[in-house]
């Protein structure tokens, strides 16, 4: 399964069991990309900067 990098337009290989929200790196431009589902297809968008979890 493949999708396109929204930054450089390059092809990105998706894992077979890809999960919505999964973070991938574009091999062409190095951007961190987030997988999302749209019309039952997996697409990619640039990931926001997100820290770690916290709590008791």
């Amino acid at each position, binding site marked *: 399964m493949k999708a396109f990098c929204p930054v450089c337009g390059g092809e990105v290989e998706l894992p077979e069991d890809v999960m919505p929200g*999964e973070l991938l790196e574009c091999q062409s431009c190095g951007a961190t990309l987030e997988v999302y589902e749209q019309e039952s297809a997996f697409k990619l968008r640039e990931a926001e900067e*997100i820290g*770690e*979890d*916290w*709590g*008791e």
Partner: protein
Amino acid sequence: MLLVKAGGRALLNVSEIARDLAAYSPFVLVHGGGDQVTSYSLKMGVTPRIVISPSGVKSRYTDARELEVYIMVMAGKLNKEIVSKLLDRGVKAAGISGLDGPTLIAERKRKIVVVEKGRRRVVPGGYTGRIVAVDTSLIRALLSGGFSVVLAPVARGTQGEALNVDGDQAAYQLALALKPEKLVILSDVDGVEVDGSPMRGMSWLEAAELAKAVGPGMNRKLLMASKAAEAGVEVVIASGLKESPVTRALGGEGTRVKP
């Protein structure tokens, strides 16, 4: 005034901690209790979900049902059990949560990154927050009235929601705001060890360096201790499972991080 944090495992020794603490009243005691929340969640058919952050820190994922159990156990059961033990020892004690006042204001994470199947994934943030502001007026009103304060690690979110917050973080934020004589952190270990040998004392700068070298859990404790010490509050990290654990910690046992 003394500020003490007792984690869930140190609380196995709650009667002895209460007996010892009585000599230092009025004080402020922040408690943990994650294991008890887990056991009650299971009783109520809520399966706890543990998430692992990219840096390897495991934490409880708090959904709406889990938050309900969290508040009931932390602000209800445990908080009142600790207050009862202190009352047994003649301490005028009042139990509140960080939500009351409000005392602790936290920001809820909209999204968090977790590790699943060894891969990083963005999921909606649970009802967990990072403390962004502290209002000490409720605690000060209680202390002025001669009451020791027992505080459960629940905060008020910036959107008005109740949030699960880390007890160590609550203690550290209260240390910055209250400027106690000392902050004593009681857990189930004897302090910080490096290559098997216990560290007696260190500066806040050394603590910040060492935080990078020790395992998760203790690294967060050291980092917060370093910041509290940088702000002028001496921190002692010690075992809560001994006889007179507070007196021992103040008397030189455990690891101290100095301003």
